[in-house]
């Protein structure tokens, strides 16, 4: 039973990786938010399963916090932001999407190789997922780099936190509760601040293209 559940955690890791990849190849902001919500839901499920297998009730709590925050609250906030800003248009990218995906494959191979020796030292339930989590983090990072608009960058940032959270639960059975709550609060505050920030960017430049921010430099 436990081996099957461990394999199930691996499967959820693969789903997480697939969603991270789908985010990279997605142009529309609205679909990006849906994908982010799905990533959050996968994370909730995997945290709860790890909690059940290892008999750690505090993981249930962190799953609940993740559910409220990443499946309900943040997607709602993001929906409200793109409604207010009136941006449901195609996402503009700096590099073409097929190129980004090829780079993404390279990133995945890199992180799998990087995580392999570390995973062999660990005796945790699903130590193989460390590589997947690392790949998720780097893919989200790649997404932040390749997007020119502010909202996809924020979503990339949030997806990166999802990857880190997955690494924490699957490889080390979760961080201490205090740290977890602190991070959850940070993410929430971060989204609120970035929301305000996006409105400010648009008011200043009539666009959410962050290349305009370069004009702020003094020569």
């Amino acid at each position: 039973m436990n081996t099957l559940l461990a394999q199930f955690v691996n499967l959820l890791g693969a789903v997480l990786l697939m969603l991270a990849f789908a985010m990279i190849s997605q142009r529309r902001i609205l679909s990006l938010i849906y994908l982010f919500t799905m990533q959050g839901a996968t994370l909730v499920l995997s945290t709860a399963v790890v909690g059940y297998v290892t008999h750690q009730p505090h993981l249930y709590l962190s799953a609940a916090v993740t559910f409220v925050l990443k499946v309900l609250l943040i997607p709602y906030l993001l929906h409200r932001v793109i409604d207010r800003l009136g941006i449901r248009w195609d996402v503009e990218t700096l590099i073409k999407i097929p190129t980004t995906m090829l780079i993404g494959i390279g990133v995945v191979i890199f992180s799998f190789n990087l995580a392999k020796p570390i995973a062999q030292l660990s005796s945790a339930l699903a130590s193989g997922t460390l590589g997947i989590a690392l790949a998720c983090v780097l893919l989200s990072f790649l997404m932040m780099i390749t997007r020119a608009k502010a909202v996809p960058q924020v979503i990339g940032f949030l997806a990166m936190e999802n990857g880190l959270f997955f690494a924490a639960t699957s490889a080390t059975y979760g961080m201490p509760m205090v740290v977890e709550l602190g991070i959850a609060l940070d993410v929430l505050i971060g989204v609120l601040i970035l929301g305000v920030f996006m409105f400010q960017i648009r008011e200043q430049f009539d666009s959410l293209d962050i290349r305009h921010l370069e004009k702020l430099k003094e020569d």
Partner: protein
Amino acid sequence: MSLTGLLSQLLEIVIAIALAPLMTGWVNQWRAWLQNRSAPSLLQPYRLLHKLFNKESVIADNASQLFRAAPYVVFGCMTLACAIIPTLSTDLPLAPAADAVALVGLFALARVFISLAAMDIGTAFGTMGARREMLIGFLAEPALLMVLFSASLISKSTSLTTIVETLAHREFVIYPGLALAGVAFTMVSLAENARVPVDNPTTHLELTMIHEALILEYSGRHLALLEWAASLKLFAYSCIGLALFFPWGVAEAHAPLAMLLALPALVFKLAVGGCLLAVLETISAKMRIFRVPEFLATAFLLAVIGLLVHLLLAH
């Protein structure tokens, strides 16, 4: 070669040829229901075939022998493909003739013949359709191969019967790599079967059609064979999907009685798969032809990641 093997092989071919138009009718019916249209009868594809077989076949003056031969070659390829995919039993005498790689080659052979035949007459539409078909084909084949390799890595064999035996009759194990391969396979089969995000099977709008452009010059019994072959291709792809991802219910070798159970299981799985296909087609919009390479590249990369995930988690 045993008698039961021969029997199961024959039964499988007969069932594929008989059920393939029914499957097409089922998908069309669900599509119509989901799109708030009144649905055609489930037997409509059979009526179409009957009508076409009774009609005269008109062939252009400058058509070569290739044009006449292509429908038979395509139909033969699809029938053979259906014969080597284990749908009812893994005890198939024809299965050693072709493994997963050769199966992809078989689909490619049919594609080359239908494209050549479309170019043979020299009409603009046929040529355009043939070029688009080859574009989609050369992008879809590597992705399909990668999907099949993901499954081959698990069973250490490229033979489809061995893959099904490994997946269905050993201890139940979740393979995360196969989940990624499954998504990739869905994308590839949508493209290969001229389904909605890539091509609309019911369209006759000149600029968007791919499959219809290829068979535009055919009529009568030739068209009937090609339509039947298209149904068989959908059937074959559905069966590959079932064999790789939902292989439970397929009878083992030396268990001929299990085939009694395998047939209802197959029909049930195909019915559910047909519904899902109709849902997928209804919720997605057709994409521009220039987006298709991106769509298929995503499928290929997902399949590669599936392989990598399997290698990562295998040790």
